[in-house]
């Protein structure tokens, strides 16, 4: 198999990653995220009409009923309507709003769901989410440092931060709603991207021990080439199921599936270019990976 010179284009890749990161962080700083109800608090009512729903009429009904700041959009189909009230309405308001719609439209309105989230909950959730993310990163770093070597841990974490920031940036730029399921997806992205990075690192370690004469750059190129097939196939199968979920899974799970798809795509790229790039930048060498000679017997030999 011909070795693909991945690292030959590492400067280009670095520029590409930097551009994406700048774009993401810039958008996050200026536009922030379109926080979902879970984080902002407020009331959300989803109803199903037996016929095509007239959004204009619904808006008028709501305005006449004194619901200021209500956002009315169709949700998935033209018969499903999502109404979102800003914070400040009481927890009983959702049921009353439903009653109002039923009165104005008749029996053709069916309740799909009402959600009310108080203001206390949202802030906490954001804190918890951030905390979970940091905790995940920290523990993962510890595990890799223990199983591999510190430079690999840094490489993996750089790749993870890269993936999470760009996925967040995607949500910020597109303005897609960021709710609790997307947060879960983001954490799953950490898990997934890590999986990829570890498979690559594992091969890099193996090849450093096996190809004793090769330069680090060469070793990494060989390792990436060897794992490329696997990386692509796994990403493909994961994207296949996520695609099924995004298309057929319904509106509620849509954001989750999209977040994961973006994350998996970025994660695949980062396991090739970011983690390995970081390794080279830190000057990884075979000395980092030599198995320390243990006292006495029990020395293992991994090379065939």
């Amino acid at each position, binding site marked *: 198999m011909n070795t693909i010179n991945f690292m030959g284009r590492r400067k280009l890749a670095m520029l590409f990653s930097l551009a994406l990161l700048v774009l993401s962080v810039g958008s996050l700083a200026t536009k922030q995220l379109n926080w979902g109800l879970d984080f902002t608090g407020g009331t959300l009512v989803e109803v199903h009409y037996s016929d095509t729903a007239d959004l204009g009429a619904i808006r008028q009904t709501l305005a006449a009923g004194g619901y200021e700041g209500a956002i009315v959009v169709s949700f998935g189909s033209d018969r499903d309507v999502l109404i979102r009230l800003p914070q400040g309405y009481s927890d009983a308001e959702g049921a009353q709003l439903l009653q109002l719609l039923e009165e104005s439209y008749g029996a053709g309105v069916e309740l799909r769901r009402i959600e009310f989230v108080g203001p206390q909950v949202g802030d906490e959730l954001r804190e918890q989410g951030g905390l979970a993310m940091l905790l995940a990163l920290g523990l993962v770093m510890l595990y890799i440092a223990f199983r591999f070597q510190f430079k690999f841990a840094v490489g993996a974490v750089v790749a993870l931060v890269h993936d999470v920031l760009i996925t967040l940036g995607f949500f910020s730029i597109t303005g897609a709603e960021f709710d609790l399921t997307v947060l879960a997806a983001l954490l799953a992205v950490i898990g997934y991207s890590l999986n990829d990075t570890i498979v690559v690192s594992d091969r890099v370690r193996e090849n450093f021990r096996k190809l004793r004469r090769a330069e680090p750059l060469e070793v990494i190129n060989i390792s990436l080439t060897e794992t490329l097939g696997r990386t692509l196939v796994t990403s493909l199968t994961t994207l296949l199921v996520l695609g*099924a979920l995004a298309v*057929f899974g319904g509106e509620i799970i849509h954001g989750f599936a999209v977040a994961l798809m973006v994350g998996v795509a970025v994660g695949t790229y980062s396991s090739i270019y970011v983690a390995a790039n970081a390794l080279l930048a830190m000057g990884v060498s075979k000395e980092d990976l030599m198995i320390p000679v243990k006292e006495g017997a029990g020395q293992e030999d991994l090379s065939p």
Partner: protein
Amino acid sequence: MLNKYPLWKYLLVLFVLALGAFYAAPNLYAPDPALQITGQSSAQVIDQRTLDLALDALDEAGIAYFGETIQDDGRSALVRLRAADAQLPGQAVVSRALGDGFIVALNLAQTTPDWLGDYGAQPMKLGLDLSGGVHFKLEVDVDAAIERRMETYVNITKRALREARIRGFVSQDEAGRVEGRFRTEELREQARAVIAESSPELVLDRVDGDGEWLIYAAMSEVTRREIAEHAVSQNLTTLRNRVNELGVSEPLVQRQGQNRIVVELPGIQDTAEAKRILGKVANLEFRLVARADAAASEKQRFEYRSPDRAGVTEWLERDVIITGERVQTAQASFDQNGQPNVNISLDSEGGLLMSRATRDNIKRRMGVLFIERKYRTRYETDEQGNEVVVKVPYDEKKLLTAPVIQSALGAQFQITGLDSPLESSELALMLRAGALAAPISFVEERTVGPSLGAENIRLGVKSVQIGLSLVALFMVIYYRVFGLCAVIALSCNLVLLVSVMSILGATLTLPGIAGIVLTVGMAVDANVLIFSRIREELGNGLSPQMAIHAGFERAVATIFDANLTTLIVAVILYAVGTGPVKGFAVTLSVGIVTSMFTAIMGTRALVNLIYGGRRVKSLAIGGRAAA
């Protein structure tokens, strides 16, 4: 011989799969829509007569039913219905026919056959987003409880100093502490001793001011935490009792974090009704037992609340000494002789009223009434001729206990002469439930309609099917026979995943289904790792048997590392996440563990069966290396 499993390994794989299939099987049996009938109070027995009444009502309304049973303990009955949309009308006619005193709840009756149920096989529980229902998150106002307790401390301190004849000025400062100002240092030292004795749990702090000597008494962190803990657990108990009254088949009342309580009520749509019952206030009244010669206009008759003393009544005076708002705490404990008793503490106003009422009535008895707001159902016809259900509130007052007053009572007194520790703890619980608990507020509420729940299941199952087929197709095309092995292993993984979830009693939610879908995508990763390794080894010139052997051996370490780190993330998700995130984390972690088994051992067993122990010229694994 290379690539042959010993017989026991094949048997182990088979055994695990059979076990998995067995425990996953109950999920294949769709539950029947059903009505569950229970009594409003725990003493009520459901007999054949009650059931007949309900069945007659269903007959009359033309609702088809079957398999009606009365539970062995006689506490509830179950009627299965033929059609799911008959549940709501069925509930209406049955609850009308039975009248108040019975709760008719919607239920999904399991249809798990006995031969499965006998071995503890149960279907997975469905989360609210799949079954429809209401989810509430309530917050207990712990600060209010602490605040109220601090006010009591101020009053206790004032009285203790007064009784000890120590002159000084006691108030509450901005930080909520008890502040005492004294003219001399000596007075302050005396006061310190008095406070330390009357409220030993307070932390005392002396400050010398300008010409005056100050003392501050604050709650220790431990005491604060105890009060907060107590306020939350008290609310938890009260909420549990009330939820039972709602007649929901499988309610969940669970503490979450420091001061939150989650209540989940499957099958309920009417949030207003649910909130009314959850937020309902109980109360207490302390009244003297009437003298035998009291005029009829001055006394009232009450029944005992306890089922042991059903039918026994007492005459109480109409005058109320104090109500539940004055009660701070009630705690079951033991007196110096080891007899069970209940310690009650009142606020200062309550203590004053109590001592005024009791000092001239020693040796008389005092009754404690428990008051609950209940609702009577009435059916009325409105102007349009529609029948409407009207809930008429009324207060039900029942007697908890009527002990003899042994001496003049103050803000703190005991009820003694109780038969058992069980009785004392029950009495304390009722007293606390009636006392004004820390206020609670609704901070989150989610209602999922039944149609959305059903649709979520349908969509979820559909995406699993499509996702699985796509992956299967790809794997078979790309890896040929090996791909087929991986697909079989993947299907087995799904069965195992479902069975482990069922055994754990985990709840399946929509994000949980997403987790399953993701597991399908990621579980093949292990096989992809192994197969690409085998291809590589073939490319390196190894014989097919050697390549299979080396491929599995080498890939396992990588798979282990990769999956373990993902598992770390899943566990963190579970620990930190709530609701939907938790559901996702559970399926993801279970999926990772089961996939390691099926992808490594399961696939290996299959590959060994096909190729093991014989001469093989080439492997049907696709790719250039096999050509």
